[in-house]
């Protein structure tokens, strides 16, 4: 039966079943509640006056005209609000802290930076208001690229930065020069990736209100990290943490952009406090494109030494990330460079390694982590190096990969990271085998009149970063663990809390599946509560693919504890031992006697409403709490992507004919949800490989101001994505699951770039930058004529 409960006859557990999502009915009927759907009596609307210039001194801000606009209630400049700003810290000498003011005060550092907030009866009036703002700027010199920023006479983005550098690290300083001098083959790549916008379809937004009765500021916000927003709000506004309640309703995508704290949301909250009225701000798409958090702009200069058999001997990397004008809270501008340097070797055995990495400030919008963070780039680098070494040595690129893949586990890398068991070899073998069987290699080699290439990318995806792994980054705010509470009510219904906070990943379903297995209930008996700082314990939200691996672990442990309590009570009621009780499909059954059983609901009733029937030493009530953390370097999902691309010699268009993912994320909790994550991820990876780009002109103005210029691929560009799962259960997590939210995005750019380069193999041209535009392809194809 389709659309049924997902439990196949004879199947013992809910984990592993494609249970239909609990989220779906409300989202399909228009009954989801996103921030802008919330209505609050008397709510006002906010809009921001934004700088038209990328670098300027602010001489004066005159909001008198704004305040006289019909419908405008108030307008605040930085001076009016007098807030201190957000400072994100890395506790390491190589990092220079800077502050992101809530509103720009004396200077602006990127086009679109907020200078004032206008509050009005409705959004139309607020926008009328911002048009009347008069800001007197003195334009200054600016830097819009890594090269500009590092030039000797470059103007500085922040006075406190030396050489416009937020962070410069040499985490691996092995002296590899001798290895390079003696190596049979040395290959280089100078790889660049463009700025991208994660572009969740729902823009950012919040609704803030002071509630006297609770002595609390209540902020509804579209965010991935409710507790971190609470901490930031409390710090910036001078409130105690308990005086701030952050509630995350339905969220229309985040992809990392909503895992940092925005200055706009703090300004809105400050305005609500001042006015003692609810204030709502909904970002519009134009603001979202040019003034919201971006990511991905990196340049890698890497050389690799190989022996004559194609074995890699050493790697030497110089990594530069253009992180824009500010360091974001709480992750800082160090995320991209630190991640890239630590994880560059990827799935390959690299014996010697040297890396330098830095975060460079420019007059562009600040960057946030974006799905995959730096891994799309490092996979591009490693996969290009493998291809290039193969070409140089006259070997098959897949043979070179196989000679280098990590194949004994757990493997401790030259970077100090412990890699847990995965299926690195198997995934490549399987991916190649399937494309061969399907005849793609013959098509490529035989098609004289078509330009076709096949590309592969082998990679792993570090996920489930626990407290230890994050602590190594030396952030002053260290995420990692997760806490879950499980409560059963007197009717036998269960509420599970999680510190993770979904934005499309289906946690309400998967976490319920995990709890249901422990408690012998069906997932519909389990309500998952997330995203409300008054209702869930301090948690870290959802990013870095931590939710199933870490959040799921906490849910499993807490439900397991509650199950034990239930068994103790049931044993008492059935006059036996708790070890003799099984929880199964709503019943507590004696293992030794098919007739001895009591419904779980009855146990719940006893626990609350007939507490006199409880065992003597047991407190009333039914709840349990547990914490879970990953105590190692994290967990590593892995995959191989295989893609067949055809280039159109007339238009330069790249069309993807076949896309295959062979992936391993350990125990799969809900196959349908995992497949959906992979497909969506691949689509974003293809977007980065072929289409999306936020460029800047010499004045620091972004070149994409609408979705007409920012090319989000549609159903016409994204091919069907075929997925095959391998399953190496994770030893470091409670559920056996590894995170998998980002892999699709990580692997796709390299696979597509390799396919395009394979198609260009007769031209002598190799492309080393994404996005691969039709222009690049045409120019390359011309070389062969």
């Amino acid at each position, binding site marked *: 039966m389709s659309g049924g409960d997902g439990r196949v006859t004879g199947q013992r557990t809910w984990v592993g079943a494609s249970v*239909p999502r609990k*989220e779906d009915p409300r989202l*399909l*009927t*228009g009954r989801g509640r996103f921030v802008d759907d919330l209505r609050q009596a008397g709510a006002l609307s906010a809009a921001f006056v934004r700088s038209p210039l990328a670098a300027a001194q602010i001489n004066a801000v005159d909001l008198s005209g704004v305040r006289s606009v019909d419908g405008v209630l108030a307008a605040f400049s930085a001076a009016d609000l007098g807030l201190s700003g957000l400072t994100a810290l890395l506790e390491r000498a190589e990092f220079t802290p800077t502050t992101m003011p809530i509103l720009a005060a004396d200077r602006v550092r990127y086009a679109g930076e907020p200078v004032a907030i206008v509050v009005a009866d409705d959004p139309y009036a607020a926008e009328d208001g911002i048009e009347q703002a008069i800001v007197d700027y003195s334009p200054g010199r600016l830097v819009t690229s890594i090269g500009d920023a590092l030039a000797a006479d470059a103007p500085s983005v922040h006075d406190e930065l030396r050489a416009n550098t937020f962070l410069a690290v040499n985490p691996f300083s092995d002296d590899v020069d001798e290895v390079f001098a003696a190596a049979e083959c040395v290959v280089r790549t100078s790889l660049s990736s463009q700025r991208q916008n994660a572009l969740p379809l729902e823009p950012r937004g919040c609704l803030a209100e002071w509630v006297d009765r609770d002595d609390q500021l209540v902020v509804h916000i579209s965010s991935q990290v409710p507790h971190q927003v609470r901490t930031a709000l409390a710090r910036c506004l001078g409130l105690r943490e308990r005086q701030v309640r952050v509630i995350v309703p339905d969220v229309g995508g985040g992809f990392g952009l909503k895992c940092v704290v925005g200055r706009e949301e703090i300004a809105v909250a400050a305005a609500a406090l001042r006015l003692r009225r609810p204030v709502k701000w909904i970002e519009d798409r*134009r603001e979202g494109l040019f003034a919201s958090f971006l990511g991905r702009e990196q340049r890698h200069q890497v050389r690799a030494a190989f022996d004559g058999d194609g074995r890699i001997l050493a790697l030497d990397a110089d990594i530069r990330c253009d992180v824009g004008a500010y360091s974001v809270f709480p992750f800082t501008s160090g995320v991209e460079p630190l991640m890239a340097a630590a994880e560059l070797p990827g799935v390959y055995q690299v014996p010697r390694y040297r890396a330098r990495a830095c975060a460079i400030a420019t007059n562009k919008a600040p960057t946030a982590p974006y799905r995959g963070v730096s891994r799309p780039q490092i996979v591009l680098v490693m996969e290009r190096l493998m291809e290039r070494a193969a070409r140089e040595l006259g070997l098959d690129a897949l043979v070179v990969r196989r000679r280098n893949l990590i194949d004994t586990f757990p493997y401790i890398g030259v970077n100090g990271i412990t890699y847990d068991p995965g299926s690195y070899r198997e995934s490549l073998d399987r991916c190649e085998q399937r494309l061969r069987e399907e005849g793609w290699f013959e098509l490529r080699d035989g098609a004289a009149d078509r330009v076709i290439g096949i590309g592969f990318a082998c990679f792993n995806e570090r996920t489930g970063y626990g407290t230890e792994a994050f602590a190594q980054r030396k952030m002053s705010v260290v995420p990692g663990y997760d806490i879950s509470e499980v409560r059963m009510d007197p009717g036998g219904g269960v509420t599970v809390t999680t510190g993770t906070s979904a934005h499309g*990943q289906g946690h309400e379903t998967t976490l319920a599946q995990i709890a249901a297995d422990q408690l012998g209930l069906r997932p519909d008996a389990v309500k998952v509560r997330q995203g409300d700082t008054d209702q869930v314990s301090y948690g870290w939200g959802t990013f870095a693919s931590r939710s199933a691996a870490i959040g799921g672990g906490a849910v499993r442990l807490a439900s397991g504890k509650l199950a034990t309590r239930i068994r103790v009570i049931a044993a008492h009621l059935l006059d036996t031992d708790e070890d003799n009780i099984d929880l199964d499909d709503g019943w507590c059954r004696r293992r030794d006697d098919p007739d001895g059983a009591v419904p779980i609901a009855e146990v719940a009733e006893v626990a609350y409403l007939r507490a006199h029937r409880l065992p003597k030493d047991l407190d009333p009530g039914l709840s349990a709490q547990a914490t879970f953390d990953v105590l190692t370097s994290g967990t590593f999902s892995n995959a191989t992507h295989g893609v067949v691309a055809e280039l159109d010699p007339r238009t330069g268009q790249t069309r993807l004919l076949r896309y295959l993912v062979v992936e391993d994320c350990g125990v799969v909790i809900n196959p349908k949800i995992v497949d*959906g994550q992979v497909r969506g991820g691949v689509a974003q990876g293809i977007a980065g490989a072929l289409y999306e780009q936020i460029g800047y002109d010499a004045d620091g103005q972004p070149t994409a101001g609408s979705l007409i210029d920012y090319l989000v691929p*549609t159903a016409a560009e994204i091919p069907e994505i075929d997925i095959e799962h391998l399953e190496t259960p994770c030893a470091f997590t409670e559920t056996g699951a590894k995170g998998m939210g980002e892999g699709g995005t990580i692997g796709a750019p390299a696979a597509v770039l390799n396919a395009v380069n394979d198609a260009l193999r007769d031209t002598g041209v190799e492309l080393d930058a994404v996005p691969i535009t039709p222009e690049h392809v045409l120019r390359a194809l011309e070389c062969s004529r």
Partner: protein
Amino acid sequence: MKDQHLINVTVNGAEHEVLVESRRTLADVLRHDLGYTGTHLGCEHGICGACTILVDGTPARACLMFGVQADGAEVRTVEGLADGDRLSDLQEAFSRRHGLQCGFCTPGFLMLAEAYLAENPAADKEEIRDVVSSNLCRCTGYQGIVEAITDVAAARREAS
């Protein structure tokens, strides 16, 4: 002085009389004046399709129409698709095929598909892929959406 107009609009069969400023978009009238918040705004410049509704049976971008233009019109929004708690065949198929993740784009795709299938009951997968390329989804990679609509086309063909 605000430039306001009294309009009559029928939404999912219910008649509404509402006073709107002439510059107010139909999306805002539906969402904020009338409470049909199922219609979502992802760009407000006509590209993403999240705001797609049916105006007199034809798909339209609610962000590109003014409320006053809907005077006298018959509008259908996502709230009108299910029969009480019973999901329509399209809605069910979206869930079964995992054609939604965050669900923000979903109302737009559903309304688009609803109108398209009404006119083209014999649509095949390639045509459907082509038609839904007018809307953006950032989460699913589109496959589940295309499969869901294709399933419904096939089932409706079978039933007729």
